[in-house]
């Protein structure tokens, strides 16, 4: 028998996404930046809406039930660009279904 995945309409579940930027590549490092996107439409997080991070570390988010689904890779700098600064390097995507 083949199992058929239930659609979001059937389950009523939606994805909530939390993006944490950490001070190093370690998941238990300090949160330096954060963003949230709410697929339920219940909340409307946006740019510059808070000065206080939702968690102190990435690990704290795991402890609160967030599931990690993506972490940025560790890439060496391009030769000649070792001292350049650009995007935040340590980006971790988490989700909850609600």
């Amino acid at each position, binding site marked *: 028998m083949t199992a058929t995945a239930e659609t979001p309409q059937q389950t009523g579940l939606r994805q909530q996404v939390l993006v944490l930027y950490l001070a190093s590549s370690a998941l238990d490092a300090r949160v330096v930046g954060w963003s949230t996107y709410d697929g339920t439409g219940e909340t409307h997080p946006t740019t510059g809406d808070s000065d206080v991070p939702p968690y102190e570390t990435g690990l704290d988010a795991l402890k609160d039930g967030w599931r990690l689904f993506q972490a940025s890779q560790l890439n060496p700098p391009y030769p000649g660009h070792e001292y350049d600064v650009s*995007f935040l390097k340590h980006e971790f995507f988490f989700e909850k279904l609600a």
Partner: protein
Amino acid sequence: MPHPHRKHLLTSVQMAQFVATGAFRMDAVVPDDMNQQAIEVLKAGIPGVPYGTPLSEAFVDSEFVERLVQLPEVAGAIHSLVGPEPTVDHHAVHIRKAHEGEAQNLHGDAIIDVRTDAFDVQLMYYPQDVTLEMGGTLSVPGSHLRRTNESDTGRYQNLRGQTRLVCPAGTVQFLHHGIWHGGRKNDSDLDRYMFKIRFNPTVRQVRLWNTDDLYEEQVAAELEQNFPWYENATGRLEKYNRIKLWQAITGDDTYDPNYWVTRVSNRPQRVVADRSNNPHAKQKKEMV
């Protein structure tokens, strides 16, 4: 434009603060009578200025703006940052309507701009008291040297240590062209006004401020600042890049109090190995 009095130029400590943070702010520097007048003037609109118009010619048709840029403290800051007779890149009146639902994405203006020995500044003037609810400009101290293009940073909603501007009426801030910023959502009952002018330098930006305190310890302390949103490792690269910028605008490429640049560019050429072990030693001429 007359040369500002020396007492109105920025100090080296203030310039170092700008190089570290990408911003310099002067609270309530514009007098009340101008602030009272400003909203009507901004509502009516400021006449357009062709790109690259010298500052002294740009606002001859706008007495209000002429007065604004000639305020001694404002003129002193402009001169210190971009020098005499900069050109006006563009100007704009920004209005965030009461209960406007949207915040701007975090962005840098124009396009990616990687100049290491020159920079533009943007003057931002706030004629009203700006409360947190009014959604004053969000900016990120120390983000100006990051090499990112316009709103590619839009994914970042909040960064630790960000500045959500709250200020008294008449405040002017100057921002480095690269700083990450955005207009925040206005949750108040009041429309919020801001007037912006971008200046391009027309001279080399070397020692344009009051340099009496150039080698004071506080200069080094400003340049060594860390910001709460910096990653541990990249935060060190920020200091490297900051020192390079300071060296460029002071014309002193030996200034490096914490050795961020010096140690990674140290490549001595003096060879002291014994002649027999030294591949660079000249060979003795063979006797023929």
